[in-house]
């Protein structure tokens, strides 16, 4: 999927994550998280898996994570990608 514009999904509530997706070249993922020390690697992996499933090859993805579970992260990334890609 092609990223045409900047879009976001999610909130800054506890247990949620705010994901912003913007056009870019290649994949860049920036993670800020209250559980970065404990789960930084897993969060990044979930983002990359979701992007790959949606066939996104060029995007800048920023996460402001308040302790979301992987299912939440995947859902927020997908929603942001679809909004940024003009699907939704």
């Amino acid at each position, binding site marked *: 999927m092609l990223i045409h514009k900047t879009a976001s999904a999610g909130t800054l509530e506890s247990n949620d994550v705010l994901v912003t997706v913007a056009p870019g070249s290649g994949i860049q993922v920036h993670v800020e998280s209250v559980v970065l*020390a*404990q789960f930084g690697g897993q969060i990044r992996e979930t983002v990359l898996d979701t992007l790959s499933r949606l066939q996104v090859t060029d995007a800048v993805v920023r996460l402001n994570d308040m302790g979301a579970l992987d299912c939440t992260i995947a859902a927020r990334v997908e929603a942001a990608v679809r909004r940024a890609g003009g699907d939704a």
Partner: protein
Amino acid sequence: MNKLTSNLADAIRASGLQSGMTISFHHHLRNGDGVLNLVLAEAARQGIRDLTLQASSLFDVHLPLLDHIKSGVVTGIETNYMSAGIGRAISEGVLEKPVIFRSHGGRPAAIASGRVVIDVAFIAAPAADSMGNANGVSGPAACGSLGYAMPDARYAKRVVVITDHVMPYPLSPCPIEETDVDIVVQVPSIGDPKGIVSGTTRITRDPVGLSIARLAAQVIEHSGLMKDGFSFQTGAGGASLAVTEYLKPILRAKGIQGSFGLGGITGYLVDMLKEGYFAQLLDVQCFDLTAVESIRDNPQHQEISAERYASPNARSCAVKSLDAVVLGATEIDLDFNVNVHTDSNGYIMGGSGGHSDTAEGARLSLIVAPLFRARLPIIMDKVTTVTTRGSAVDVLVTQRGVAVNPRRPELKAGLAAAGLPVLDIRELQSLAHQFTGVPRAVKPQGRVVAKVEYPLGGIVDEIRSVIS
């Protein structure tokens, strides 16, 4: 004889306060307290340095303390609890000497034994007379019980009562008595009522918290302790408070007459007293306005000192007569050790308060906690900091089931026979990991910034600085 002055500077000079001394404060005004900041600012103005602060708790309203640390006015801190703003600075190493953490019972025990010597106690008093008789139930900053201040008044070398509400002699009631008081200072305000007591405390509406509370009440029901004379304490946290609401129908159905509710008292325990579930409340600290009004108006609602509450050196104390206590946890480990001192990144954000005292004293100690909060599993292989030893903890209650300490096989059998979901603590941990993943262990590796002293004495754990 005149003890009363309206000049704090004169009072501090008259108290004999000098550099290097230990000064004490109580925390009944909580995050509305104005007295600690007033005294430290005046001490700094007088050029006094190298003070050790002996505080029953510190809140973020006391953040000006950090400036007094940086300028050398305060060089030591001993306390039972520290809120996250001050805790963060301590964790980052602002104070050279390690903080000594005690518990609400360990502190008066250390003071009474002479191991901790208070040179000057500064006692914030919502009401006082000109001779220093003081209470917490009158005046604009009424906070209810003054339980944590009583040992300070009794054992300190010099006692300064600071009030904004002078009443005619002789004041009654007087948990702080004139026999112990050297000086009375009248100031315009001792604190902001909005930060002292909340208007009401509310039980959680979170469905996870409510299901934990319901299960905790069932554990107590089937613990063998539900008999006439039942006694109970709960923390003021979300799920802990909700346990009271689930206990009432159980007590009613069984026709049980309880003996006392203990602790930090909230409106929920006051309701239980009024509705006849308990004969007495023993109150070391009031958490809301309902509790303040009740301790003022109801003779069955007794004010008790921190010594009577929980001092292990006293000939007896209330926690040793306590049947069940419901407590929270930031982390609990596979050996049932509990941490309420540090967050999962190692930053100080709390302290024992009465956690270890009540867990050690009560016949049944329940820890209520969700399986995870903001992705962090509550059950760890090892807690970041040991506040309360696992040997004092009987049951962990989560939304998915309860884990019983292997030291209590008869309790485990009784709960299982009652049909409660009893699991091994490792099973609950892996259940949490199915949702969260397995966290990478984080343990700060810097220098020692705090030591945790257990109620009976002895250091149970050390807290190291977080190096970012």
